[in-house]
């Protein structure tokens, strides 16, 4: 019957059949590559490559302008610093420089580079490379945008010979100036037209254990082993960082063997992975503190009041009472499932040299003492049990938190009732991180949740608590940790800044933290553990930092990935094969089922059509 041409509707009807058929074919194709024939060589090829799941922002791999943690961490693998942080305890250890000395006035630092080192392209590494790198950062605003603060005290950088580098400081400096700054090859970078715009994401020439081979935005970063690395080539062939936008998918990928290392797990995910075959979990001690900022009376750098903090918080008795009203231990057990270390002050326990460990000054959870202190300070309770401020109004403090941080919502749920027990009312305001960031800078808060990742050298973290570090009235100019200022603290900061004797400097750093602790412009709750897991059936010897109880990912160094050693391959390949064939059979099954369904429907519609003709 052909009396009318086919119309759109007619074609539409046959489409589902074509669709089903194509789905059946696609199903077959999609599952087919899991066949052992194509998968086996691939498995043995990649078994020496560590696959790391990552979900962090990658801004750029240009070490002069990269600010984000993940590219900075990747550049730690690519570029060896003059001085490295050790795996043992993050103390200074040899990098490009094998030894160094400081003049007695702390103004001249002389570094001796190890002779005979080579870049990954075979060119020699000389003292001219760090000189060029540092001078770029000193003289060019854009080149200093990531690490400019680390060279702001540099006066001159000289190279008397190929293995000696002399840095002259403007002011005496106790912290080693050779750390943290990636040293780039002069012979590559000096030829670039605009090194500040260089993306540096392909076939990079480096000096660390790995070099960057390729980068696909939002997909992957590939590193290959650098045979010229001065400690010797790594035992694995490379690292692949694979982009995962949610951690649940990461967990599944680890189970499936698609990645070898996952990090930033939630306690629930961590628990689910514990005890799984071939997977080892690691709750590594982190270098980040979590705490509560209290508005002790924010002022700008030139002493003008800022923001709208509750006046009652200017009283140190109130701030101390808040500290003693919070049961940090219980809160950590509930919020972190115990995966953390209770904090003293703002330098984490992974840096024992700087961490405040004098228990005599610490004030633990003690609501009775808190109540007594507030009674004595003259804050009488009203009829509803809420204390009254000096103007006779009930004390109600705002608590600012970030809504997409689940921990902060949980903490707020605990803190509110606890503060009520000592007669302080709270109003929780959960908002976006950007608002918290601006409000905390401008002093527009009573209390807010704060957190900082702390570097191996305490100078910076102490420095942002000095009077000079407070911003101007517009919130610009400098960063202050707690909008707090104390001349006594400043004195101790300045002393440790120039103290060359490590023992004495350690004491000064701890003294400074004691001053901060007593004043309580913020309360530190804990140092959160990094929850990680890896395929121990494929890799071993992932050196932690610190070696005892430390982290595998987010190290200040390259220790875990440099130490990584592949586990016997034959066993892994066999395991993988059995998994593949199951997948293959299920794939075939689905394809066949789809095919049958398609055929039946096709046959049925033909039949009904014939009957009706």
């Amino acid at each position, binding site marked *: 019957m052909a009396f009318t041409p086919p119309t*759109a*509707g*007619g074609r*539409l*009807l046959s*489409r589902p059949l074509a669709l089903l058929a194509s789905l059946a074919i*696609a199903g077959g*194709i*999609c599952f087919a*590559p899991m066949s052992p024939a194509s998968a086996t060589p691939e498995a043995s090829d*990649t078994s020496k*490559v560590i*696959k790391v799941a990552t979900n962090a*922002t990658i*801004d750029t791999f240009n070490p002069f302008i990269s600010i*984000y943690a993940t590219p900075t961490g990747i550049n730690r693998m690519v570029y060896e610093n003059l001085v490295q942080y050790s795996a043992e305890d993050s103390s200074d250890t040899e990098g490009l420089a094998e030894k160094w000395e400081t003049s007695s006035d702390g103004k001249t630092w002389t570094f001796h580079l190890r002779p005979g080192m080579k870049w990954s392209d075979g060119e020699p590494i000389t003292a001219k490379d760090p000189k060029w790198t540092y001078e770029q950062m000193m003289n060019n605003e*854009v080149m*200093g*945008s990531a*690490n*400019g603060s*680390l060279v*702001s005290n540099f006066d001159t950088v000289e190279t008397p010979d190929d293995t000696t580098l002399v840095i002259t400081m403007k002011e005496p400096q106790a912290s080693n100036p050779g750390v943290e700054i990636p040293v780039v090859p002069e012979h590559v970078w000096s030829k670039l037209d605009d090194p500040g715009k260089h993306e540096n994401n392909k076939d990079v020439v480096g000096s660390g254990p790995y070099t960057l081979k390729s980068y*696909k*935005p*939002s*997909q*992957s970063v*590939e590193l290959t082993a650098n045979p010229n690395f001065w400690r010797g080539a790594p035992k694995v062939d490379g690292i*692949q960082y*694979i*982009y995962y936008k*949610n951690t*649940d*998918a990461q*967990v*599944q*990928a680890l*189970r*499936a063997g*698609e990645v070898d290392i996952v990090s930033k797990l939630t306690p629930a995910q961590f628990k689910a992975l514990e005890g799984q075959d071939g997977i080892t979990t690691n709750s590594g001690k982190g270098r980040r503190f979590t705490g509560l900022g209290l508005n002790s009376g924010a002022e700008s750098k030139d002493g003008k009041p800022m923001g709208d903090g509750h006046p009652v918080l200017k009283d140190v008795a109130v701030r101390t009472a808040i500290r003693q009203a919070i049961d940090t231990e219980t809160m950590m057990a509930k919020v972190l499932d115990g995966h953390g270390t209770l904090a003293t002050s703002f330098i984490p326990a992974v840096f024992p040299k700087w961490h405040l460990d004098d228990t005599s000054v610490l004030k633990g959870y003690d609501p009775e003492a808190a109540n007594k202190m507030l009674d004595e300070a003259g804050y009488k309770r009203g009829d509803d049990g809420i204390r009254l401020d000096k103007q006779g109004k009930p004390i109600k403090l705002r608590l600012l938190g970030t809504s997409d941080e689940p921990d902060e919502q949980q903490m707020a749920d605990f803190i509110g009732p606890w503060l009520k027990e000592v007669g302080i009312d709270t109003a929780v305001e959960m*908002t*976006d991180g*950007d*608002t918290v*960031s*601006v409000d905390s*800078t401008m002093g527009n808060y009573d209390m807010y949740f704060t*957190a*900082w*990742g702390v570097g191996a050298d305490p100078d*910076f973290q102490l420095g942002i608590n000095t009077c000079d570090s407070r911003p101007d009235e517009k*919130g*610009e100019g*400098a*960063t202050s940790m707690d909008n707090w200022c104390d001349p006594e603290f400043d004195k101790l900061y300045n002393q440790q800044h120039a103290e060359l004797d490590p023992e004495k400097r350690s004491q000064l750093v701890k003294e400074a933290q004691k001053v901060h602790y007593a004043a309580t412009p913020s309360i530190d709750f804990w140092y959160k553990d990094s929850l990680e897991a890896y395929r121990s059936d494929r890799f071993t010897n992932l050196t932690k930092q610190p070696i005892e109880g430390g982290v595998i990912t987010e190290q200040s160094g390259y220790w875990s990935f440099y130490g990584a050693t592949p586990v016997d391959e034959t066993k892994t390949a066999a395991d993988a094969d059995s998994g593949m064939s199951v*997948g293959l059979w*299920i794939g075939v099954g689905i394809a066949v089922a789809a095919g049958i369904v398609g055929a039946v429907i096709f046959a049925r519609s033909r039949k009904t059509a014939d009957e*009706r*003709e």
Partner: protein
Amino acid sequence: MSSAPGAQDVAATETDRTDDVRQGTSFWRYAGRKAGGALVSLAMVVVLGFFAFRILPGDPVLTLTRGKRVDAEQVAALRREFGLDESLWNQFLIYLRNLSHGDLGDSYTFRRPVADLIYDHLGPTLLLTGVSAVLAIALGLWVGQKAAWRRESFFDRASTGTALVLWSVPTFWLGLLLLLIFGGTLQILPTAGMVTTGLDATGIDYVVDVARHLVLPVITMVAVTYAQYVLVMRASLIEEMTSDYLVTARAKGLREDLVRRRHAIPNALLPTVTLVFMHIGGLISGAVTVETVFSWPGLGYLTFQALTGPDLPLLQGTFVVFSFIVIVMNFIADLLYRVLDPRVRAA
């Protein structure tokens, strides 16, 4: 929704075909009017794109440097580099001047031209949404017309019910469930990305690899979106089914199948076509959740990232590009609707 479609029958179509010339000129006037509207919308998008995001809370430089070791000079240098030290009006003029050259500025976060970033991420998003849209539309229209023709039958209730259940399921939940089953437990499909890292495949191997990565995200997207096509198709076909011209068609002796295919469905398709085009723009931005669950390297996640900061140039860029796509799609829908439906031509 179209009303009184009974006006269209074979005779009416014949009459219209004789008016080709008059129709041609008025078509251009119609197209011009629609194009003018689209241009006005675009101009508003360009202005809004700049000022709306300036209202967002947060200081880009503060957010970028939060928790990092930076001193006052570094912060000031960043502000100068981003042009944030200029007055708002000057920033707007610079934005307009750049935009007129097709330059969307440099992203604060990625330190790269926004146009490059969008270009990098557009392909994967188009692939994912394109495949999903085609499948969802085909499936939705087919199920919809079947369900309408056999209204109140078991097929109607089962298929419409299924579509509605899937439509109500949270995308994130469905995606994660599929990922858990097929990625984590059965391990027959990849858990993330668009290609296997380090595979370096070419030709057919590459296509197969991408196809495997496509399966789960596409199933998720189709499952949660096809219901809208089912419902529109079903509703409009049911409306057509009572029309007089179907009686005429049956009277000619056509069998039921042909009545449906050649007469009812073409008319019922009209509102559906508009809906489809209106959805295409939304699909691209609506892929955010699926892209996040399956770590698809597309535009959705890029936009999400731009919001934290805020990364103003990237936000402006994605907003302008998304809006552009939606406006163009609506414009095409307007034109197509006219080509498909003779009644609009007369209007």
